[in-house]
């Protein structure tokens, strides 16, 4: 498969209170963004165990994004602080394991930022196209 045809698969783990609602807004407002993303709702970005990211990358995702409330807005006060601390270490771990850390993103998107959600997905999709298929997938592409 040539790189130009490659359509990356993105798994987005989104916080119920902000980013998931933001993604919803992007949908209801009919904003255009690439269809490459599969969203999963979690109660807080702090709930996401970094192991989920690895499991997703190992099982078919080309990129994984965690979306949470802006710093200071987490509905559980400090969930996104922990999420950020972990994300930094996670990037290092991915790199040490030979997985390009750009395949993982942490984004702060509020419930009213449907446009930011669309923007981020556009950008991420473009970046992943440049990176090419995730080598952990062993050539398994979407059926």
């Amino acid at each position, binding site marked *: 498969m040539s790189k130009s045809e490659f359509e990356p698969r993105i798994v987005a783990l989104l916080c119920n209170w902000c980013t998931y609602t933001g993604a919803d807004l992007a949908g209801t407002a009919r904003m255009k963004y690439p269809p490459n993303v599969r969203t999963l709702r979690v109660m807080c970005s702090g709930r996401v165990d970094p192991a989920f990211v690895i*499991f997703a990358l190992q099982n078919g995702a080309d990129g994984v994004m965690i979306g949470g409330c802006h710093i200071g807005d987490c509905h559980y006060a400090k969930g996104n602080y*922990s999420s950020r601390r972990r994300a930094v270490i996670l990037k290092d*771990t991915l790199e040490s*394991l030979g*997985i390009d850390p750009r395949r993982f993103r942490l984004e702060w998107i509020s419930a009213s930022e449907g446009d930011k959600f669309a923007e981020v997905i556009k950008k991420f999709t473009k970046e992943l196209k440049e990176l090419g298929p995730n080598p*952990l997938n062993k050539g398994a592409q979407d059926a």
Partner: protein
Amino acid sequence: MLNKIRDYCRDLLESKKVEGILAVYTENGNYFPYFFTKKEELNNLCIDKKYLLLNSVKPLRENLVFLLQSKMPGKRIGILARGCDERALFELSKRGQVNLDNIETIGYSCNEEQAKICTCPTPYPTVNLKFGEKVEGVSEHKRWKEFSQLDIEGKRKFWEKEFSKCIKCFGCRNACPICFCKECLMEDRKFVKGGELPVEIPSFHFVQRYHHAAQCISCGECEIACPMDIPLRLISFVLLNRVKKLYDYTPGMNPKQECPIYTIKEERNEEALDELL
């Protein structure tokens, strides 16, 4: 050093300052952890065999010190501690696995040879060193030169080769003093297949390395235990360095400093993190 330590322990027992002393016992070439309560037994106390006293007793997944503490609440317990014993003690106490009150550590240093075997950067207790001199530790992994030269794809291939040697014996986890979870993600059947090889690459090994990013006490037990000689700690060194740079935190050095990954108390350095994302 051995005689001095034995004398010191004898005094501790005689003066009833401690109920007993946890240390290594040797007999006929065998060695095992033992709770010394009688001074006659001290002739069998040994210091030249490493046995991490704070390791959790599988399958209970509770450590010996905790078990002793629950058996004799309020009593003072002595521990003859190497650097790694002390570090494990501190890290475990931060996670409620032992209680530092009523513990008397008798610290002694290791020699350079032992530090090499363990790839140990701090072969001595940093807080309570009572016997021996501090010797230089080993702060670079023996395969670091080879590994650090690889590009990202090279690293992936490196681990694909290394991890596929893994026989899923769980030695790396069982030997680790910081691994005490009763429900281990490495055995979660949603993520890891039971009794099948090859292991899930790289998630199987990722779990332990990542969980220990800010708690690995660099005792080397995981690699020593690994029958397939997988250089697991190459990853730990990277993570520990990052945690040190960001939060000035080295696991096991200070019993009062809280683990920065799990406690969000001081907001220091927070904004700087965004730049690393």
